[in-house]
């Protein structure tokens, strides 16, 4: 990278080179900043300022329609802790995350192993598994909403009374939707990992007389761990922040049994309570927890690589 940079910069400041398209000659540092300026503006206005603002909102009495009515810390945080839906939502979100991650990664690994050889046929299979991930999560949820409805379901032959009627059926029906939508996505990530394992390693194992099962356990799995860890981080983070699928499929029902944490944020801010300050407090807590979870996962990943 050093060379094109230095030549570019030398040329820019060299008086012999005519500078076209610019009214006056600028120093290279300024040129770099000029190209980075749009990025910096976007990040500042739509990311840095909102992060500061949400922190301030979390310690303010801030209604949806009334706006800022001044400092009230730590009332918002106390209200969040006292919300009767908080702990059920936390528990449900964790349960959903564990179930989804285990099933999704298991299936994605099986799919990746199934299509890892390159051929016309596996190419068709890969595309078929990947097509659902082109759909939006909301579109996929709407599709399954119709698929699960008693009026229009083609799944009557399964003998399931109600796909969304009880807390546990609602959970499993949603997990099925997520697995369908994301299995191809994680298969692709694992496939990248699988293909980076050198053929020599497999060749050596074969010469040593290792069975297929032994090769998988002692060669494929350990060498695939970085990819598996990446998938786990993405899947855990995504599931902890689940919203669209439950908002569309279950609306948190039946009996508030499938309310996730992010749904609680939404409800606090825009649905019922109309309290932006309280929602901001809960989202600050989510941000903190997520940072801790991600740091722990990165540590785990790094520890295993050493």
């Amino acid at each position, binding site marked *: 990278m050093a*060379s*094109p*940079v230095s030549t*570019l*910069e030398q040329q820019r400041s060299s008086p012999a*080179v005519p500078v*076209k*398209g*610019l009214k006056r000659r600028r120093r*290279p*540092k300024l040129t*770099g900043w000029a*190209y*980075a300026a749009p*990025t910096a503006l*976007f*990040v500042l206005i*739509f*990311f*840095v300022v*909102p*992060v500061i*603002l*949400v922190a301030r*909102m979390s310690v303010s009495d801030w209604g949806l329609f009334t*706006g800022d009515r001044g400092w009230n810390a730590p009332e918002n945080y106390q209200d969040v802790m006292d919300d009767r839906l908080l702990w059920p939502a936390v528990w449900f979100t964790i349960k959903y995350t564990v179930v989804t991650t285990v099933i999704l990664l298991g299936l994605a690994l099986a799919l990746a192993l199934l*299509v890892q050889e390159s051929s016309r*046929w*596996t190419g068709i299979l890969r595309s*078929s*598994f*990947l*097509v659902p991930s*082109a*759909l*939006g999560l*909301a*579109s996929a949820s709407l*599709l399954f*909403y*119709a698929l699960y409805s008693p*009026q*229009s379901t*083609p799944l009557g032959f399964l003998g399931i009374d109600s796909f969304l009627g009880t807390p546990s059926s609602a959970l499993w029906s949603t997990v099925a939707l997520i697995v*369908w939508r994301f299995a*191809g996505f994680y298969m692709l*990530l694992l496939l*990248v990992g699988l293909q980076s394992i050198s053929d020599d390693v497999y060749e050596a194992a074969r010469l040593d007389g290792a069975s297929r099962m032994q090769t998988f356990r002692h060669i494929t799995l350990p060498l695939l761990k*970085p990819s598996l*860890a990446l998938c786990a*981080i993405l899947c855990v983070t995504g599931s902890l*922040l689940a919203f669209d699928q439950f*908002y*569309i499929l279950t609306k948190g029902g039946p009996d508030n049994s499938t309310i996730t944490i*992010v749904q609680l*944020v939404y409800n606090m*801010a825009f649905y019922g309570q109309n309290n932006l300050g309280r929602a*901001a407090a809960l*989202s600050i807590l989510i941000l903190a927890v*997520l940072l801790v979870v991600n740091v722990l996962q990165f540590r785990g990943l790094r520890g295993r690589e050493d």
Partner: protein
Amino acid sequence: MRTPQHVVGGGLAVLFLSPLVWAAVASVSPQAGTAQTSGWGLGNYQTLANYQAGIGQYLLNSTIVSVLTVLFTLGVSLLGGYAFAMFKFPGRNLLFLVTLAILMVPYATLLIPLYVLLNDLGLQNSLVGLALVLTMFQLPFAVFMMRISFEAVPRELGESALVDGCGSFRALLHIMLPVVRPGLITVGLFAFLAAWNDFITPLVLISDSDRAPLPLAVANMRQQVMGIVDYGATEAGVVTLALPCILLFLALQRHYVRGFLSGALKG
């Protein structure tokens, strides 16, 4: 590959494709409680066309938001990637890290203050405001992708441009742009899919139902008519939503996969 694997693979492929095929077939087949009660036809699409502001309006909203998001994302990440890959300037690493940090903050955490902020900027209920926010969410991937695209450009190419007396902007426009085009296609594809499909962002930021993008409109449609849901119209809505994504995906699959390759490298 052995025969049992063929059978398992084929069966799974059918299982993955069947919900899509079912939605397409069900949207035109006869069904009680929908606009298409007897015979096959486009009755459900007719319902969709006449729903409130009409599907044309919602498609237009979605198209405006998606096109704006793609343009903003391409413009910002092209210049940003060029800056990060080719220039040294104070604050470079900090800016890059803060851009990537967007990934660490949940959508919901940002949408609460953005709802207030867009009101202050006079962008409440605005499709432009929505596109600006969606662009911000795309920036970590887009800037990262464009940075590695520029870093992969052979150094002789950049040098030859300058020997010819190009300024850095002309070098970008005439020499670099064709070379980083694959990266731009990947960034554009991801930005389009994300903007076309996003649900929670317009749900929070757009309260005027005439300005709703299509996913929001189809989801809202289910609550109409005294709580009785017209599943036929929902199916037609899903097909309308999914079709552009699937066609784009099939046409640009290679670029889609490259996006994941670069993402995997990052991890």
